[in-house]
């Protein structure tokens, strides 16, 4: 077993993890940056083709406090305001950092071009043409990480346990997929930047590698999660015809730039029936749009594949081309001619507002354990505005790296006994002659049941059923079949991923069950109204676990944090 020592360990090398690594290294700390896949190529950042919100006021007068107001309004009273304020106040500096580091933000007349996006009252969303924002941000950070001293990168290395002793982080145990062996890492500060949990749903727009590992690692280490019921379903993900080589949520920027009519199966506009205004512009908030689309489908007014139509046929081809040039050709290569046929779209799991509960230093209740990016819960409350996700990656990454560096002075006090349980579990797994399914097959079952019972529409009855079904899947863990071979054995990786997915699913379901109202992204068919009694946040932890046959998660309520944010 290899043993490594570092000042700061960063788990996950998407936008947030890479920024955290850069930030901690700048403070003079040695950094170890791990990724389950290849550094800078996985996670959500690289898939985010759209925009980054920051009040840099290049396009028109703007201020971070206005950005904050928009963020809080979308959050429906549940935002952890100090985090939201940190996000908005520090966003402009991060955009300009990235600009200095070579990110080619779209420009016009010498300034960075900014557009509006749903939920923003100003033109404050920066982007990179054409639909290249995430890949370009990831490329910039990859380059920056590569040229920063004191950062060691490790690809195909998955953290499977954060080690805590006497209430303080001591390091972690990780699996090296390339060899199949475990590695121990002594680290006085650990930043969890492994993204959200979109993979627990059957339909998801994010990279395939976000199964809630950050949440699982945090929970098992003794930290708390917050707002886990709030999963954002992106309303107009591509559904049909089959589209390959493109991000399924690519239609949003098309609508900002060009309009685009959302029509039901009978080619009628319908958003207005649900209290939204649309008229070809994209002004309806995401939660309302998702709700409206699924209601139309439920009423039998959907498109052939079970979504609705998005129609650009009224827009002249030259206008399509000037807005999206090469993308139009890629669509044609997929057999999609927007001047002739409408596409079909439907909601998909896209982002998670909830996540790891942290304080204003991005630290959990475990000393030395930090979170960054989508893994952080609370900044978006019940619903995130468009454009704030990469902002979170950059801002929270920078802050978490900074505070982790400060905490790393404590020294570790590593003991080889910390890795003993993980080592024993892997050995058992290897020797197992399983009779059950492979972990990947169980993942599919979990994705199906979460989509059906804990997706865009929920009910107490469905959620109860989900809780039982998740429990049944958990009971299969000891019987799963793991194929032979140590080198690049994806079954082993799938096994740990499944454990993370089950924990995350439990946290979502237990939280959704207790929130008997509809608010933001959490929509209950059996409680369609927002209720003042639920204007509070829900925390989940493993404190109350009593045994394998009883619900392993315990949750409690905390009233909304209402601290003064203007001084941030």
């Amino acid at each position, binding site marked *: 077993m290899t043993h490594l020592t570092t000042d700061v360990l960063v788990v996950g090398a998407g936008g947030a993890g890479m920024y955290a690594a850069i930030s901690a290294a700048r403070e003079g700390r040695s950094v170890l940056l791990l990724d389950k896949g290849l*550094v800078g190529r*996985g996670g959500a950042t690289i898939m985010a083709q759209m925009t980054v919100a920051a009040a840099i006021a290049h396009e028109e007068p703007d201020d971070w406090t206005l950005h904050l107001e928009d963020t809080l309004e979308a959050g429906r009273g549940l935002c952890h305001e100090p985090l939201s304020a940190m996000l908005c106040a520090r966003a402009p500096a991060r955009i300009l950092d990235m600009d200095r580091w070579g990110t080619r933000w779209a420009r016009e007349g010498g300034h960075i071009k900014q557009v509006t996006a749903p939920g923003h009252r100003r033109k404050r969303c920066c982007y990179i043409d054409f639909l290249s924002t995430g890949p370009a941000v990831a490329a910039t950070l990859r380059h920056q990480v590569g040229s920063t001293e004191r950062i060691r990168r490790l690809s195909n290395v998955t953290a499977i346990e954060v080690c805590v002793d006497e209430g303080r982080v001591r390091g972690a145990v990780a699996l090296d997929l390339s060899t199949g062996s475990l590695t121990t890492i002594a680290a006085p500060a650990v930043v969890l930047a492994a993204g959200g949990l979109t993979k627990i749903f059957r339909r998801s727009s994010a990279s395939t590698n976000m199964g809630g590992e950050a949440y699982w690692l945090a929970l098992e280490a003794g930290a708390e999660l917050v707002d886990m019921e709030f999963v954002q379903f992106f309303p107009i993900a591509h559904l049909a015809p089959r589209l*390959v080589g493109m991000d*399924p949520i690519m239609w949003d920027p098309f609508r900002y730039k060009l309009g685009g009519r959302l029509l039901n199966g009978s080619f009628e506009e319908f958003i207005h029936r649900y209290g939204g205004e649309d008229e070809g512009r994209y002004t309806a908030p995401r939660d309302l749009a998702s709700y409206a689309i699924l209601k139309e489908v439920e009423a039998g007014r959907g498109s052939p594949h*079970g979504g609705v139509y998005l129609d650009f046929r009224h827009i002249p081809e030259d206008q399509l081309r000037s807005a999206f040039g090469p993308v139009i050709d890629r669509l044609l290569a997929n*057999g999609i001619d927007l001047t002739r046929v409408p596409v079909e779209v439907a909601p998909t799991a896209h982002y998670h507002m909830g996540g790891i509960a942290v304080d204003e230093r991005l630290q959990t209740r475990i000393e030395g354990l930090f979170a960054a990016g989508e893994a952080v819960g609370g900044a978006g409350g019940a619903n995130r505005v468009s454009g704030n996700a990469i902002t979170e990656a950059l801002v929270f990454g920078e802050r978490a790296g900074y505070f982790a560096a400060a905490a790393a002075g404590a020294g570790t006090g590593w003991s080889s006994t910390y890795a003993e349980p993980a080592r024993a579990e892997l050995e058992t797994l290897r020797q197992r002659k399983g009779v059950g399914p492979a972990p990947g097959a169980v993942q599919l079952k979990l994705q199906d049941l979460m989509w059906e019972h804990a997706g865009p529409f929920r009910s107490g009855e469905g959620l109860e059923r989900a809780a039982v079904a998740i429990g049944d899947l958990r009971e299969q863990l000891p019987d799963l079949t793991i*194929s032979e071979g140590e080198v690049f054995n994806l*079954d082993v990786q799938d096994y740990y991923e499944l454990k993370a997915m089950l924990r995350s699913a439990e946290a979502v379901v237990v939280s959704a069950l207790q929130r008997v109202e509809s608010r933001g992204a959490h929509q209950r068919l059996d409680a369609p109204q927002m209720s003042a009694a639920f204007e509070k946040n829900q925390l989940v932890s493993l404190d109350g676990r009593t045994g394998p046959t009883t619900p392993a998660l315990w949750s409690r309520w905390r009233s909304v944090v209402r601290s003064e944010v203007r001084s941030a």
Partner: protein
Amino acid sequence: MESLALGCAIGGSFGVSDSVVRASVTTSLSVWRGSAQEEGRVEIYEVPFEEGMSVLDALRWIRTHVDPSLAIRYSCINANACHTCMALVDGVVEYTCTARLTTAGASVAPLPKRAVVRDLVTDTVPSDEKLE
């Protein structure tokens, strides 16, 4: 909710869906299996065919329905953003997420100029990002 569940069965995670599983048309995929230590072998899989499906769709279907021991490298599934899913498809280096399958089938092998790790996974990890 019945119609909703049915509608959403299509394009699960934007990969191969249950609608594909029920389809009667299939295609065949010849896949190189082996490791750095072995000579390797070609295995042939019958895969349900859906118009427009990618080679990666088929490989993922094989992993979840036939043989989970098949090693492949991918991350973003279908967006061609992560650029990690390259392999030799019918003798040409391609991203398996954008290479389309037809009913005529395809043969898939590891990248020729990279050391094989396992099956279709080759050593594309930068040398300074490895543990050993």
